[in-house]
C-alpha cells in the first residue's frame, strides 16, 4: 500500500506539468492518459484500503509533530473515489467541449484547461489524505487559485468579475484559516490533526481558533450567508468547469470542516455551535431552493441548487454536537448522520456534474441556456434530457437513487437523535428541489416548433452526462458496499482519539 499511496497525488501533478509542456497536438492525449491513470490509482488505493485498513503515511519518514502525516481511511477514500469518477467523465466531456466546432482544433481555453484542472485534481487528492493543519492551508490555496483560473478561463466580462469575487473570498477564507492554525500552534506547538485533537482542551484560545477556521472554511464552502460569490462563478464559467466547481471543489472545504470537527475540535464544540451551523444549513436549503425556482437561466438555476444542496450537508453538525462522547446510543446516530451526509455529498456530486454537463450540451446546441428556449429538447436531444431527468431524480431524493439513501440516512439520524426540526427542513427542501427540477423538465418536454434551431452535438458529451446520471442512481442500488468502504477506520467516532503514537 505504501508504494501506491503517494501516486494518487504525484500522478495528477505530473500530468499537469506534462500538459503544460507538451505541444498543442498532444495536450488532450496527455490529459486523458493522466486522468485514467489517476483513477486506476485511486481504485487500487480503495482496494488496498478494503484489504488492510486505514494507512498512516509519514512523508519523508519524519514522525508527526515534526513531519507531515498523511492518512487514508474510509471517509477520505470515498471522497477520492467521488473526485476520480466524476473527474474521468468531466475530462472526457472536456475533450469534446473545447474543440472548435468548425475546425475541430483545440481552442486556447482548451490548452489552459488541462494544466489547471489536473493541478486542481492533484490538490483535491492531496487535501483528502492530508493530516496536517498547515499542509491543508497550502492545499486550500492551491485549490483556490487553480479553481479561480478555471472560472476565468473563458475570459468574458461576467466570468472575470465572478472569478475576482471568488478569488477575494478564497483569499479571505485562507487568511482566516491560517490565523486559526497559528493560534492552535501557539497554544499546543503541534500541527498534526490527531495530535492536536488529543492536546486541545476547551478554552478561549481553542474557541477563537475554531471560530476562525470554521468561518474560513464556510467562506470557501459558500454556506448561506457567505455564498455571494458562488452563483455567478458556477453559472458563468464553461460547462466542465461549472461541473468541477459544483461537484468537487466546494466538497473539498466541507470535507476539511468535517475532519476538523471530528479529529481536532471534538471536545471543543458545544451544542449551540452545532445548532447554529445546522440553522445556517437550513437557511441555505430554503433560500437556495427558492432562488433556484425564480431563475430564468438553467445554469443559474443549477448554481443556486448547489447553494441549497450544500445546506443539507450541514445536518451532521447539530446531531454530532448534541452527542456527548460517552453516550453509546447518541453516538450511533452520529455515525448514521455522518453516513447520510457523505452519501448525499456523493450523490449530489454525480447528479450535479451530470446536470451541468447537460446544460453545457444545451448551450452547445442552442447557443443559450434560457429556460424558455428549452422547448423540444426532449425530442431533439433525448440522451441529454434523460440525463437531466435521472440526475433530477437523484437530487430530489426519489428511491432508488443515491440521493434517496443520503436523505433517508439523514432523516433517520435526525429523528433518532430527537432533533425533529431538521427533518422538516429536509422535507421542504426536497419539495422545493422537486419544484425547480420539474420546472426545468416541463420546458424540455414541450413540443418543438423549430427543429433547425438545434445544432448537432458530439455523442461523447451526451454519453458522459448520461453515465454520470446513471452512476448517481447506481450508487443508490449498491449502497451497502459503499457504506462499508466509508466506515473503514470508523471516521465518525466522537470519543477523544488516542494520540497518534503507535501507528508510525
Amino acid at each position, binding site marked *: 500500500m505504501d508504494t501506491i499511496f503517494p501516486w494518487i497525488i504525484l500522478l495528477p501533478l505530473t500530468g499537469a506539468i506534462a500538459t503544460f509542456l507538451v505541444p498543442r497536438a498532444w495536450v488532450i492525449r496527455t490529459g486523458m492518459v493522466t486522468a485514467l491513470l489517476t483513477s486506476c490509482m485511486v481504485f487500487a488505493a480503495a482496494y488496498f484500503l478494503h484489504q488492510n485498513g486505514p494507512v498512516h503515511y509519514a512523508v519523508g519518514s519524519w514522525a508527526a509533530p515534526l513531519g507531515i502525516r498523511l492518512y487514508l481511511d474510509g471517509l477520505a477514500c470515498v471522497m477520492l473515489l467521488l473526485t476520480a469518477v466524476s473527474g474521468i467523465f468531466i475530462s472526457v466531456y472536456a475533450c469534446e467541449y473545447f474543440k472548435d466546432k468548425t475546425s475541430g482544433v483545440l481552442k486556447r481555453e482548451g490548452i489552459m484547461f488541462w494544466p489547471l484542472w489536473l493541478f486542481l485534481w492533484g490538490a483535491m487528492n492531496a487535501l483528502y489524505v492530508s493530516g496536517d493543519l498547515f499542509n491543508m492551508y497550502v492545499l486550500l490555496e492551491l485549490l*483556490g487559485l487553480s479553481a479561480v483560473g478555471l472560472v476565468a478561463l473563458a475570459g*468574458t466580462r461576467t466570468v*472575470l*468579475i465572478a*472569478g475576482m469575487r471568488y*478569488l*477575494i473570498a478564497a483569499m479571505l477564507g485562507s487568511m482566516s484559516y*491560517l490565523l486559526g492554525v*497559528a493560534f492552535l500552534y501557539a497554544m499546543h*506547538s503541534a500541527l498534526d490533526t490527531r495530535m492536536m485533537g488529543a492536546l486541545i482542551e476547551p478554552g478561549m484560545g481553542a474557541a477563537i481558533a475554531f471560530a476562525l477556521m470554521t468561518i474560513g472554511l464556510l467562506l470557501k464552502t459558500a454556506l448561506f450567508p457567505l455564498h455571494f460569490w458562488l452563483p455567478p462563478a458556477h453559472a458563468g464559467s464553461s460547462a466542465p468547469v461549472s461541473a468541477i466547481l459544483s461537484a468537487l471543489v466546494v466538497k473539498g472545504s466541507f470535507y476539511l470542516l468535517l475532519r476538523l470537527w471530528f479529529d481536532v475540535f471534538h471536545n471543543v464544540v458545544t451544542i449551540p455551535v452545532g445548532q447554529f451551523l445546522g440553522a445556517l444549513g437550513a437557511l441555505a436549503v430554503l433560500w437556495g431552493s427558492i432562488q433556484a425556482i425564480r431563475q430564468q437561466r438553467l445554469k443559474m438555476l443549477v448554481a443556486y441548487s448547489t447553494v441549497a444542496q450544500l445546506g443539507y450537508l450541514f445536518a451532521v453538525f447539530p446531531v454530532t454536537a448534541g452527542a456527548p462522547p460517552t453516550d453509546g446510543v447518541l453516538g450511533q446516530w452520529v455515525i448514521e448522520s455522518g453516513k447520510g451526509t457523505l452519501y448525499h455529498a456523493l450523490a449530489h456530486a454525480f447528479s450535479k456534474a451530470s446536470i451541468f454537463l447537460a446544460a453545457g450540451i444545451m448551450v452547445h446546441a442552442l447557443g443559450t441556456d434560457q429556460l424558455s428556449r428549452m422547448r423540444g429538447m426532449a425530442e431533439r436531444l433525448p440522451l441529454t434530457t434523460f440525463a437531466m431527468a435521472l440526475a433530477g431524480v437523484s437530487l430530489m431524493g426519489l428511491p432508488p437513487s443515491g440521493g434517496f439513501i443520503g436523505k433517508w440516512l439523514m432523516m433517520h439520524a435526525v429523528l433518532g437523535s430527537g432533533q425533529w426540526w431538521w427533518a422538516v427542513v429536509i422535507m421542504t427542501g426536497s419539495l422545493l428541489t422537486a419544484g425547480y427540477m420539474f420546472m426545468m423538465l416541463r420546458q424540455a418536454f414541450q413540443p418543438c416548433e423549430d427543429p433547425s434551431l438545434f445544432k448537432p452535438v458530439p455523442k461523447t458529451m451526451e454519453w458522459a452526462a448520461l453515465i454520470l446520471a446513471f452512476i448517481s442512481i447506481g450508487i443508490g442500488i449498491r449502497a451497502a458496499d459503499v457504506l462499508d468502504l466509508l466506515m473503514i477506520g470508523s471516521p465518525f467516532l466522537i470519543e477523544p482519539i488516542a494520540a497518534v503514537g503507535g501507528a508510525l
Partner: protein
Amino acid sequence: MTMFLAYAVTGMIVFAIGLYGVVIARHLLRKIIALNIMAGGVFLFLISIAARNSQAFPDPVPQAMLLTGVVVALSATAFAIALARRIYTVTGSATLSDGER
C-alpha cells in the same frame, strides 16, 4: 509585557485593519493591498510565536510556515493583480462595478 506579546498584539490590530480595508475598498488594487496587510498581520503573529521561547535559536517551524505563507501570499497577489488588470482591460473600470460585495 514581553516583546512577543507586544508584536503579537500589533499583528492582531494590523489583521483587523486589513480585514476592514478589504470590505471597504472599492478599487481592486486597494482590495489586494488590504489583503496583503491582513496577511502581514497574520505573519507578524506567527513570527512573534517563534520568538517566544528564549532558547539558543527561535522555533524554526513557525518561521518555515511563515516563509511558505509569504510565497503563497505573493503568488495569490500576483494572480489577483493579473486578473485585476485583465478586468480593467476588458471592462475599462477598476472596480467590481455591478453590485459591490
